[in-house]
């Protein structure tokens, strides 16, 4: 009760300080001092403190199960474990927006502290544009989705959090993903500032690069966490499903990946300035579009919280305003720096450009596949869906040249690289990778030309990235780790695709099911009562052709608040692969629907993706 009130008023205080900050910052533009005035720091800190206070109040309301607060009532329950009470704070629309706002004000604060060496006007314009976004979020929160709405009389018990969201990984997935999404706001703001100040140069690129790396890192980790969660909690039994909601997080990721590369060219060679700006503006726009599509309920998914058309309209208007302002500033103020730079076909900058083209192609495929069904529904009222075959068909063929370019590009020199047509070592590596793929493919009955080439190229890339660690210069250590992580990721995905197998059947207790190279025996099922759900654990004895017996115990959970059934897959993980068993109740019937999957190298997919993301961070450590 008290904390809700406090939270609401500190949110309003935060808004007041942000509004005051705008004229103060504007006035400071005409003052001839070289550093920005201390008032700006004070107000930015106040803004941060009050938003933080407001967020803490909401967390406390959740911990205390204060059901006089509407969103606590809608999303919490007294029997819920403490950890999930806290994570329930951002497990809903209002709370997650407040978290976004907190990240926005935190990032501009960090920006002001760390960019003291940058030109003053550039800092102020970044702040001003960031404030526009911040005030937009404030208004959105207070007008359409106030997290401190009051309920009177206060209900005795809450409605509970969706049980599939009660999971440790999902508790941290949203904050990390938001750090990635919202982190790109600084990229947008500072690009706009750089355009106005005519500061689009290598010095700026150096500053921007840090922010790009930070958002890219968080976005990568956020996507991986979401993917791990979908693997074991939704029982999808894979790592990527081309679900529209996944695609939406992939689009800004592809854009940021392109940006991470192009910003280096701008830093080292003062080239691709315009292109870098376009990417900077697009990455935040894509993040916001994603928020719009998910939050407005246009895409039906786990992420669509209670839908309110007003919210969709608000985000849409806000989004259009941001895009129009950005484009206006881009076209009116932007003066391209004309530096004659010589580049040859075989050079690092050209190979990075090729990387960017591929990224843009991948991005447009994902964009069209995700957005086209929505347009068709609006225009022709036809309902369609675009599934994995579409993406597989369009992406995998282009992956082959992409991987090939990736194996030769990074070792090229800037400006001009003298390419030796006959490099014995590379040819030997290529032969070795062909031989290894032959050894792998001979164990399967898959021998299409396509898979073979894909496997050869990904093993080749893997060898090349391993070799790169043994090259003496330690200059690009973070790049080496990230590229190694990526090659391991692709290799694990390809091997996973080749060797996965699954068995689906309906089975009764005490029955034995025989499949081509083994059998599944359903021993028993045990029920027990847990804190906020009933648990049913089945025991399955699985024998495969190598005669090794494994026991798997998948679980069904029946939650009472709200009444929901979830199934927890049982997964035996080791370094070679996962054994995955999930069971479902079909009807009040003795038959259980089970799916048994062998998924090789699953753990490598997660580990390599995390390694790829973390590689970027070593960039920050080595400087100290």
């Amino acid at each position: 009760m008290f904390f809700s009130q406090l939270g609401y008023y500190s949110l309003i205080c935060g808004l007041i300080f942000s509004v005051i900050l705008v004229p103060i910052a504007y006035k400071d533009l005409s003052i001839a001092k070289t550093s920005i005035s201390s008032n700006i720091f004070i107000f930015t800190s106040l803004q941060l403190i009050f938003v933080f206070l407001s967020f803490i109040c909401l967390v406390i309301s959740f911990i205390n199960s204060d059901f006089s607060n509407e969103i606590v009532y809608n999303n919490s329950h007294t029997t819920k474990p403490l950890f999930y009470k806290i994570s329930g704070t951002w497990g809903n629309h209002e709370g997650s927006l407040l978290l976004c706002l907190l990240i926005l004000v935190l990032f501009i604060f960090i920006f002001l502290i760390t960019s003291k060496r940058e030109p003053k006007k550039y800092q102020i314009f970044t702040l001003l544009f960031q404030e526009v976004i911040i005030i937009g979020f404030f208004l959105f929160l207070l007008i359409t989705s106030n997290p401190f709405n009051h309920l009177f009389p206060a209900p005795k018990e809450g409605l509970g959090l969706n049980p599939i969201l009660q999971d440790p990984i999902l508790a941290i997935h949203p904050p990390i993903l938001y750090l990635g999404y919202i982190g790109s706001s600084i990229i947008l703001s500072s690009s706009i500032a750089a355009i106005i100040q005519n500061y689009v140069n290598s010095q700026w690129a150096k500053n921007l690069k840090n922010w790009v790396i930070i958002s890219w890192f968080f976005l990568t980790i956020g996507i991986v966490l979401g993917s791990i969660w979908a693997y074991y909690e939704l029982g999808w039994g894979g790592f990527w499903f081309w679900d529209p909601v996944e695609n939406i997080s992939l689009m800004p990721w592809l854009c940021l990946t392109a940006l991470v590369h192009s910003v280096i060219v701008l830093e080292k060679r003062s080239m691709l300035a315009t292109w870098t700006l376009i990417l900077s503006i697009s990455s935040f726009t894509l993040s916001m579009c994603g928020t719009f599509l998910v939050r407005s309920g246009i895409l039906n998914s786990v992420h669509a919280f209670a839908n309110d058309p007003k919210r969709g309209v608000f985000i849409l208007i806000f989004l259009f305003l941001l895009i129009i302002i950005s484009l206006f500033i881009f076209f009116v103020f932007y003066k391209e720096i004309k530096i004659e730079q010589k580049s040859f076909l075989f050079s690092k900058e050209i190979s990075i450009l090729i990387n960017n083209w591929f990224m843009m192609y991948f991005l447009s495929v994902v964009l069209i596949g995700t957005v086209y069904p929505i347009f068709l529904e609006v225009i022709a009222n036809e309902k369609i869906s675009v599934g994995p075959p579409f993406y597989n068909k369009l992406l995998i063929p282009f992956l082959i040249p992409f991987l090939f370019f990736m194996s030769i590009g990074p070792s090229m020199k800037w400006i001009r690289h003298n390419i030796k047509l006959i490099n014995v070592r590379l040819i030997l590596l290529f032969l070795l990778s062909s031989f290894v793929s032959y050894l792998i493919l001979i164990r399967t009955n898959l021998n299409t030309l396509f898979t073979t080439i894909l496997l050869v190229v990904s093993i080749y890339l893997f060898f090349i990235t391993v070799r790169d660690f043994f090259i003496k210069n330690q200059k690009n250590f973070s790049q080496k780790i990230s590229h190694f992580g990526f090659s391991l990721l692709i290799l694990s995905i390809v091997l996973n695709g080749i060797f996965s197998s699954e068995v689906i059947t309906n089975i009764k207790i005490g029955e034995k099911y025989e499949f081509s190279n083994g059998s599944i025996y359903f021993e028993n099922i045990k029920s027990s009562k847990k804190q906020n759900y009933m648990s049913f654990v089945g025991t399955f004895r699985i024998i495969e052709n190598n005669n090794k017996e494994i026991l798997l115990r998948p679980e069904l959970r029946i939650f009472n608040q709200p009444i929901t059934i979830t199934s927890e897959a049982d997964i035996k993980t080791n370094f070679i692969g996962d054994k995955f068993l999930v069971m479902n109740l079909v009807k009040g019937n003795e038959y259980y629907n089970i799916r048994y999957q062998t998924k090789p190298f699953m753990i490598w997919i997660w580990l390599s993706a995390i390694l790829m993301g973390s590689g970027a961070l070593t960039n920050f450590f080595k400087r100290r």
Partner: protein
Amino acid sequence: MYGKKVKLRVLFISLLLISVILSIFLILKSLEENVVYFLSPTEIRNLTEIENKKIRIGGMVKDNSIVIDSENISFVITDFKNEINVNYSGSVPNLFKEGKGVVAEGFLKDKSLLIAEKILAKHDENYMPPEVKEALEKK
């Protein structure tokens, strides 16, 4: 007539344009082939011919219609006007229940039978496919 530089630039831009047009063409072409249309049981009833194309049917699982044995699950999808039988062997999601919304993807055998390859039910307890919602509201 023109310098080498201009020629190179023209070549570069035309290459870029060609590749952009090609890739857009490619995307749209395969979009056409891989799109799965979404229909309601009533729309199936009104079809004039049955194409051998993958479709999705959405509606509610009819009460007391699920029949299960060790191989198959069969049930009836209804939009409260028309119905269609579905035969399926595969894994089912948790929220696949009688009286709940469901989407089945597969091939039509005839106007009253769908051989499904995939079943989707939404994760939300209160979910109802939009078509069904519309149909119910019209009543």
